[in-house]
């Protein structure tokens, strides 16, 4: 008696551009999902099944966007939001990474910081917003930068600290064996093995920082894309408000993608695992 095994011929990767695109099911179905949803939304509002007045309409959002980018105020709002986000986030990196490295390296420093890290990590940071406005003022970017900073700082410090603490002893022994100075040990062993943790922190930080920008702007109502959204809803202009939301979404995607780029640059030495397949 014999058992028949189903055989499967090995398919090679298609060379042709079009066939390769058509064989990339992930991309193909992803695009199809977007198109179907947008079409249904568009047709729904045009036929009146969906009330455009409240729910907007895809092409309406595009039209609102085109109108919006022609106003000088829009560019001011965009610049304000970008400035708040960028300065808060960069400040969080500049301070968060060294603090995390130091706290991971020096046990006593970690013990001293632990209560504060726990305190700020448990605290819903948005609750601090009114207080920060008192401290840093409604006008000007400072209260918003503070919110963004607080959002991202702790997301960066905690993983960085853990990364240093989980440095592989084997590599520390190698560095000791060759009599590496403390500085070289840090540069050649501790930091490279902590990079993946720092990247994780940055990724979490981008999301938190963005939440910070939106809530701070909605609350203080001075300038920024958050204010654009609020103004649009006050005029019951759903399309224009959704255009603002779209801008934040795009910023989030750009932010996460930039982090991914940084990661790829510093992780060349890592073998690609099957989990990395995109």
């Amino acid at each position, binding site marked *: 008696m014999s058992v028949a095994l189903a055989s499967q011929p090995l398919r090679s990767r298609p060379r042709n551009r079009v066939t390769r695109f058509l064989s990339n099911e992930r991309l193909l179905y992803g695009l199809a999902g977007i198109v179907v949803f947008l079409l249904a939304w568009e047709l729904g509002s045009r036929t009146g099944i969906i009330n455009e007045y409240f729910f907007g309409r895809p092409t309406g959002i595009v039209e609102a966007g085109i109108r919006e980018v022609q106003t000088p105020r829009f560019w001011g709002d965009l610049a304000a939001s970008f400035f708040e986000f960028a300065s808060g986030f960069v400040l969080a990196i500049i301070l968060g990474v060294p603090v995390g490295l130091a706290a991971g390296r020096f046990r006593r420093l970690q013990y001293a910081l632990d209560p504060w890290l726990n305190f700020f990590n448990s605290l819903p940071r948005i609750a601090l917003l009114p207080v920060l406005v008192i401290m840093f003022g409604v006008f000007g970017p400072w209260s918003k930068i503070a919110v963004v900073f607080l959002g991202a700082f702790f997301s960066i410090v905690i993983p960085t600290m853990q990364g240093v603490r989980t440095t592989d002893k084997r590599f520390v022994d190698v560095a000791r*064996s060759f*009599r590496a100075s403390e500085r070289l040990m840090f540069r*050649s062993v501790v930091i490279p*093995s902590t990079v993946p943790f720092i990247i994780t922190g940055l990724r979490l930080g981008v999301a938190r920082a963005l939440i910070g920008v939106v809530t701070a702007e909605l609350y203080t109502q001075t300038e920024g894309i958050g204010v654009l959204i609020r103004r649009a809803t006050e005029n019951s202009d759903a399309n224009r408000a959704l255009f603002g939301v779209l801008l934040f979404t795009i910023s989030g995607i750009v932010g996460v993608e930039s982090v991914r780029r940084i990661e790829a640059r510093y992780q060349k030495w890592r073998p690609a695992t099957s989990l990395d397949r995109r």
Partner: protein
Amino acid sequence: MDKGLALQARDVRMEYVDQATGDRLLAVDRVDIDITEGEFVSIVGPSGCGKSTFLKIVNGLFPATAGTIEIRQSAKGVAHAMVFQDSSLFPWYTIIDNVAYGLICQGVSKKDAQRRAQPLIDLVSLTGFESKFPYQLSGGMQQRANLARALTVDPEILLMDEPFAALDAQTRELMQAELLRIWSEANKTVLFITHQIDEAIYLSDRVLVMSARPGRILADITIDLPRPRQLEIKRTPEFITYADQIWGLIAKQLKPHIHDKAAHPGGEAVA
């Protein structure tokens, strides 16, 4: 230290405190070792006997509790360098940067260090792999790089801590032959730790047999086999006689445990 000696260890003892139980444990006890310049000496012993610990004491990674270790140091190069067990290359450095690491630790500029690492890369037959990362190399090639890294600092004595333990049997045999070739070219004193008896005999001028914990030197066996040695030597009667003699000494170290298990079937072994 006596003339012509590369290493002289006297009455080395190492105690440590078990962090879990708080007990004081004796890892290595009353170890006396003399190694002549240019000699290849192996320490074999049952696993957990303290042979790796002894090597790490020589390397300065652990402090000895008592005793002295003297290592000859010439004007150039360093006294000793370690070839670690598997995957001790920094995965984030290329092969050339890994091999040059010891020199970087001495404050040599990156460019100079790489230039001085190149001949060692050639010696271990890794030419062409300089800019690869460790994960792109096989286990055997990684251990070649590991060996080159230790040789780059020009150590008086090369310390090798079971460097081939993680390799498959065929690769291990080839690496043993390669190591003898490199040893004769590099002209180094070697202290080699292994739990593999045939590896120790094949490589060494002398094999030191270590007892179960606490590690003591039980026997000092001179391996009187002609050099250069081919791998075929492992099948000669002389080689097998050495292997039997050493295995006899090690088996005695393992026996008490076997007896205890047999005497208390189902119960905990009393070591």
